[in-house]
């Protein structure tokens, strides 16, 4: 729930920088090692935005698996999702594990308020890559 609140804060900041508007959907990257369950996060998002200006908006999860690589045997294949294996099943060497710890807000889709005045929040910095969809 607190992660959903933080995501809402980051998204509201980003939308405010482009005027104001109502969030339709957000895309969030979740790594498989981030200890976040996508279905629960979607549910928490619904609860967090309920009753507010972004009520009814949706949260889309982009799932990011971790890469596990053995210096001798290469990529570990047929790995169960969420597997935390740190030792190569074939040769026993420690694996090099990269990625999978993502917990990032990727982008926000919003409908600008027709009568919104721009009240730019000072300080925050989102990449300036707004475009029509």
């Amino acid at each position: 729930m607190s992660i959903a609140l933080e995501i809402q804060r980051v998204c509201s900041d980003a939308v405010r920088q482009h005027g104001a508007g109502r969030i339709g959907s957000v895309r969030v990257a979740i790594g498989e090692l981030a200890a976040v369950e996508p279905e629960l996060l979607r549910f928490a998002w619904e609860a967090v935005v309920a009753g507010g200006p972004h009520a009814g908006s949706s949260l889309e999860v982009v799932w990011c698996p971790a890469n596990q690589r053995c210096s001798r045997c290469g990529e570990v294949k047929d790995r169960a999702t969420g597997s935390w294996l740190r030792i190569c099943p074939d040769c026993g060497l420690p694996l090099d594990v990269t990625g999978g710890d993502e917990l990032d807000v990727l982008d926000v889709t919003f409908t600008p308020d027709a009568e919104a005045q721009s009240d730019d929040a000072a300080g925050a910095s989102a990449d300036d890559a707004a475009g029509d969809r």
Partner: protein
Amino acid sequence: MSRVVTVRRRALEASEERARGLRERFAQSGTLVVNIISSPGSGKTSLLEATVTRLAAGHRCAVIEGDVATERDADRIRALGVPAHQVLTGGACHLDARQIETALGAARLLPADFLFIENVGNLICPTAYDLGEDFKVAVLSVTEGDDKPFKYPAIFARAAVTVISKIDLLPHVPFDLAVVDERLRSLNPSATILRSSATTGEGIDAWCELLTARLTEKRRSCVST
């Protein structure tokens, strides 16, 4: 017409920024900070009681306790003459960096050689939150079952130290130490695995030696940088 804004920011950036600030503060005060995580009832507070008692000669300890309700745990630590602050989360299942900042403001915990943060009893959510600690410690009691490391891998993969607690109860429960060692190593080959009993005092010396060695290391590296 709807618009898309690219954000690409860490969802927990505000919390991570606070954790960085805390880490700097702890470096300045030369305090080794340990974030202790386990399921409820695995013996975190008992381990802490034994630890601060053992370290009391020659070291200043302080404790932040996280619980959903009651001052019970902080009272247990204070009874030993060690400053403790109780964070009541009111339902939240983990501590975050903001609560640590508040605790440091509310109670006179620093300067200290060791600050122990006893997280809310939970093996899942506390894993994701950086509190500015030097390392995380997982506590696993033998009564919980030896399959815990595979069922809740995140904490055991992230904890620099795992303490197997309540080992005095080993004769009474089906818990295979060798199997757990192997499972923990497969999740985290570099982790230190210790065994302890707060009741008999077994393993407390080794745990305290690890803590004082890490403190010495930290102070050496803080001075050299």
